[in-house]
């Protein structure tokens, strides 16, 4: 009996985007495919890239991460080195949380200095994330863009600040992560606005906002699928690589709470919570995944989808 395999062909192709590396490092290229993830069909020149987040500003670590980072210095520069050199992260996502007024309130110059040091310490591609506080980020992005010293991606540009982030990227040759709040039309709009500004398409990544497992993941899952289907159907503004930042997985009580014994070991559970979020995002179509747990980087880098 022969059953012809129902392979699906799409008219569109996702634009390849390269995250540049430092001297001696390996750049990361994602995108370039003309098919959905997972199904063995079409051309998929680049596997999803696996990165790790490094946060400034300290704060309590969930049990799973405390265990994984054990015996390591957790200052951003050392941690960045461990992520890139020991744990196999293909790129880093450096979140300047420490500059948030409620998160330590490091001066902007301090944030920019850390960026500079991290970039000197690792050779892999780096995405630099703001602290999330509008006014601070308005100062942070120009400072980071200037002090970076080599091309990075700035995260993120949204409807409000895209001119500033886009401008900072253009001034110093960086890329931009275009963020939108789980809304396909706003994702498209963010790309349109950045294009109008003159940011070249091969320097834009889509961040659709990633809800953590149990906390809105299903919205992200469907929006990533829809963005990808639209891109493959020929919508050029959405035919861009998608970045899923899994940080919200660690905000779930289920990922960090050690007091509920019926939920099992908090160390394994936390890791699995992030891992589950990651697999779902990969299934939906994510091209870049940002983890915090070293074990998950290993799991995803070894996966058969590469």
């Amino acid at each position, binding site marked *: 009996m022969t059953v012809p395999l129902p392979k699906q062909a799409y008219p569109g192709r996702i634009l390849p985007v390269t995250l540049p590396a430092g001297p001696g490092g390996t750049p990361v290229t994602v995108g370039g495919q003309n098919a959905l993830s997972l199904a063995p069909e079409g051309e998929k020149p680049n596997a999803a890239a696996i990165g790790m987040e490094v946060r400034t500003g300290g704060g309590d670590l969930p049990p799973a991460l405390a265990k994984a980072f054990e015996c390591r210095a957790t200052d951003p520069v050392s941690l960045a080195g461990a992520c890139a050199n020991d744990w196999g992260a293909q790129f880093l996502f450096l979140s300047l949380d420490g500059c948030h007024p409620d998160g330590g309130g490091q001066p902007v110059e301090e944030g920019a200095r850390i960026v500079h040091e991290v970039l000197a310490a690792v050779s892999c591609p780096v995405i630099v994330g703001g602290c999330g506080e509008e006014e601070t980020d308005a100062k942070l992005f120009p400072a980071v863009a200037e002090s970076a010293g080599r091309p990075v991606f700035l995260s993120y540009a949204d409807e409000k600040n895209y001119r500033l982030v886009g401008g900072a990227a253009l001034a110093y040759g960086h890329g931009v992560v275009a963020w939108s709040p789980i809304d396909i039309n706003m994702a498209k709009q963010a790309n349109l606005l950045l294009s109008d500004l003159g940011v070249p398409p091969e320097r834009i990544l889509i961040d659709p906002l990633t809800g953590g497992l149990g906390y809105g993941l299903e919205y992200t899952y469907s929006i990533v699928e829809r963005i990808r289907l639209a891109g493959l159907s020929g919508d050029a503004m959405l035919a861009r690589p998608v970045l899923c930042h899994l940080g919200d997985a660690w905000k779930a009580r289920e990922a960090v709470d050690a007091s509920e014994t019926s939920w099992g070991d908090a160390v394994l559970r936390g890791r699995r919570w992030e891992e589950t979020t990651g697999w779902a995002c990969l299934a939906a179509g994510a091209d870049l995944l940002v983890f915090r747990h070293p074990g998950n980087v290993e799991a995803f880098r070894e*996966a058969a989808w590469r």
Partner: protein
Amino acid sequence: MALTALDIYKLLPKTNCKDCGFPTCLAFAMQMAAGKAGIDKCPPASEEAKAALGAASAPPLPRIVVGTGDRAVTLGDEVVLFRHEKTFYHPTAIAISVSDALGDEALEERLRSISALSFERVGQILAVDMVAVRFDSGDPARFAKTASASLARCGKPLLLSGTCAALAAAIREVGASRPLLRPPPGETAAGAALAAAEKLPLAVSARGIEGLAAALAAARAAGATELVADPKPADAAVAVADSIFIRRLAIVHRAQEIAYPTAFDLGQGFPRPFEAACLLLSKYASLLVLDTADPAEIFPLLTLRQNLFTDPQRPIQVDPGIYPIGKISPSSPVLITTNFSLTYFTVRSDVEAAKTPAYLLIAECDGMSVLTAWAAGKFTSESIAALLAESGISGKVDHRTLILPGMVARLSGKIEELSQWRVLVGPQESSALPSYLRRLPPAAFVPVHG
């Protein structure tokens, strides 16, 4: 493709007899169009109508029921490839394995841990659905005994994996519970005959889609009708490919010879079972068998399933009422928002981040977000004033100050008029709550007397 309600209505008797349980033929037609009712519910329907509508309303992926009663598990019966197109109706069933080679004590312990795999999230109980009994002992009687103990201890439907001899033995003990039979690939025909004779669902195993199509044909030839397909993949990559192709063949190509719910056994040394489970939950599997019973692994899987099988148009709701956050006191601030689960979670986590104990009042808004609920007239000055009066919050705090979401600032004045509460307008975005709450002067929450 699908018939519209009007197409269906035209074929109905148009008598509004209400035998179907709906007030009019049109209302019934709407339900049929949505796939929520079948023509079998319409006794007076003509034979032509039954023929036309029976085929048209048959789901592209058949519906297989395992087990009985309110714990019965439905496999298949899906209509779309992507959840945003409509919804995924029947959550992937998760079966935890039990070996019949376990000693009595170990078996008891295993069944206890399976029963414990139950978690509550947003008002729903998340639990594993089935117990998969494996025939490892070589002794059909022991297999039957294990099946029987599993059913008795867990009360969940069973998946019976074993030779036909073992299956036959087990059916004598637990056949009435409608277990799913899973004979080895070499015994498909015999297993099918057994399933046909006992009117039980059958999982047909064969490697690859073509092999599976042949095995399914053999099973049908042997009289089995309620079938589940197991493509026996070697690893996660093959499993996901098989699952995607089978679903596409069913939904897009209507390839009836292969259009069956899928089952995957991720135990017994299957490589990287957790990864495979996550991806198969995302990509269409109807049933997964797992060897792990570790809650640290099962809880995230069940949560993923809960997420993906939520109807995109019917958001999860939390129960309306008073939610204390942190070490509350009578002078803790009171905030209000809607019962859309995502809104609730976001506000809750932002209040927790503020480390300011507070009461969160949740208003019944059909699971809509703040602005949507306001626009739909569900989150109004009247409904908020009524909640303030009726929820009992005034017995928990001795102040009368409410923090209102900034998005609906326009309601503030009328709430003050309708209730005895003063309204402070909070930030528009929940993310600004931590700094907002920290900066609130304690004087905002002084007690009122009289």
